């Protein structure tokens, strides 16, 4: 299967691999992640599956460069991710966003261009075009002047995806994107994530609802402090795999999800 490169992959003309090798992250209370290893590439939709406190959020934040890594390595396109990369977009959990912030839909999406535009430079036509494309792709053109709290949960989620698109990120890291959405929004977000990976982006999402994993994702990472299994959903997302992930009584320690 050949994958059509999306607009931000086009200039590189290669298949982009994200690989995580023996990653360990430590909190003050103790290890949060231990020996995480997996490798995946653009054009895939990956589910992170595990109980609360298994380290799903921690793993996403570590890949995004938000947490110091105790040991192990993360490679993106063959080079080690040092601190942060414009090509990797992290989308916060909905509860962590200040929805009363006086900002409009297009205001949020415009922030995605700040890394390109720098701290001072006015937006170029390229920047404006990327913003328009992102708004259009997420079907937000009519809502662009809305304040962000005046949106449905699904629309709010799309605003943050649009910001990642404006940023021209290759990798989208989403933390529980489906939580708190109604049935229709869930279905449409699932469709959006599928489309994004079909375009050639790499989508990695912490996922809670086990019933929908097969419909949305290509690959799954079963996680509980360490990576228990990784591979195509059909192979990994099995009765025995899930029992191993969720079945045993939770280990002592603080919840860090």
């Amino acid at each position, binding site marked *: 299967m050949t994958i059509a490169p999306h607009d931000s992959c086009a200039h590189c003309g290669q298949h982009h691999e994200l690989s995580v090798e023996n990653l360990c992250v430590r909190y003050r209370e103790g290890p949060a992640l231990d020996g995480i290893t997996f490798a995946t590439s653009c054009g895939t939709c990956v589910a992170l599956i595990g109980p609360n406190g298994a380290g799903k959020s921690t793993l996403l934040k570590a890949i995004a460069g938000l947490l110091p890594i105790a040991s192990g390595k993360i490679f993106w396109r063959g080079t080690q991710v040092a601190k942060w990369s*414009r090509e990797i977009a*992290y989308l*916060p959990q909905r509860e962590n966003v200040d929805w009363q912030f*006086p900002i409009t839909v297009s205001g949020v999406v415009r922030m995605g261009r*700040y890394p390109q535009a720098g701290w*001072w430079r006015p937006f170029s036509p390229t920047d404006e075009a990327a913003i328009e494309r992102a708004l259009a792709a997420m079907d937000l053109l009519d809502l662009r002047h809305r304040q962000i709290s005046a949106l449905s949960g699904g629309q709010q989620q799309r605003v943050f995806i649009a910001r990642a698109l404006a940023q021209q990120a290759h990798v989208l890291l989403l933390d529980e994107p489906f939580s708190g959405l109604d049935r229709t929004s869930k279905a449409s977000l699932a469709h959006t994530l599928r489309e994004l990976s079909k375009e050639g982006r790499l989508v990695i999402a912490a996922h809670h609802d086990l019933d929908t994993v097969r419909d949305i994702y290509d690959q799954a990472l079963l996680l509980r402090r360490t990576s228990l299994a990784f591979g195509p959903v059909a192979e990994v997302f099995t009765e025995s795999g899930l029992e191993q992930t969720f079945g045993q009584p939770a280990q002592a320690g603080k919840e860090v999800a």
Partner: protein
Amino acid sequence: MIDWLTEPLRHPFNQRAIVAALLIGFTNGYASAFVVLKKSALKVGSLSHALLPGIAVAILLVGLHEWSAFLGALFAALMIGLGSLAVSRGSRLDQDSSLAILYTAAFSGGIILLRRLGVAQQMDEWLFGNIMGLRDGDLWTTFWISVGALGVLTALHRPLLMTLFDTEVAATLGVPIRALNYLLFAVLIVVLIGSLQAVGCMLALGLLVTPAATIYLLTDSTSALFWGGSLLGGLASVAAVVIGWHLNIEQGPAIVLVLGAVFLIAFIFSPKYGLLRHSAAKDR
């Protein structure tokens, strides 16, 4: 009406006071948007109280000069701000509590010290402001503080806004969060010192919160919050100076009172977020 407005302008004291009110109100109004978005009004209030002991120690050490009070205030606010960070990191106490302990202790020390330095007259000014007592030199200080603070805040507008909206995402986009936070508070301290002459350290917080807080109830646009806050701060301060002159009331408290009144109007009548709007929506 025109006379009512122009009459105070004939006196040089008033001219200086009005220019200063415009500068200070505008700068504070702009900076107040950051305070409101950061939800750190209490921290800023603590820092404004921390200015007084700094002035006291500066006078004790080098006497009262044009710059000694300024530098002393700056130094004290920085020490107390950073001190509270050190206490909260070195113990299990949170930063707000540490800040409260440090600034009240320092403030008490400042009051006791100032009473014994024979500057009782000036102490009232440092506490509540005396915009009519402004000299040309003070006006220049105010001017440079305004230019500096507005310059830094405008130049860093994008990264600051990103940090305020969501810190984590800002960090993933390469914004140096911690350095920016320190810088923002440093600028806010300088702005506080700049408004000392107008409203004093007891009331400075009002000028550094109310303008943008009022606009916050009226708009959903980020830039309207900043520029609306600036305009409201500037206009309300000038209006208060003029009103204060006619009614013979102290200008410092008048500024904060006028801002408070405008806030009350917005709180009740804001078409989008006002009290009346809420109850009307409930009735339906």
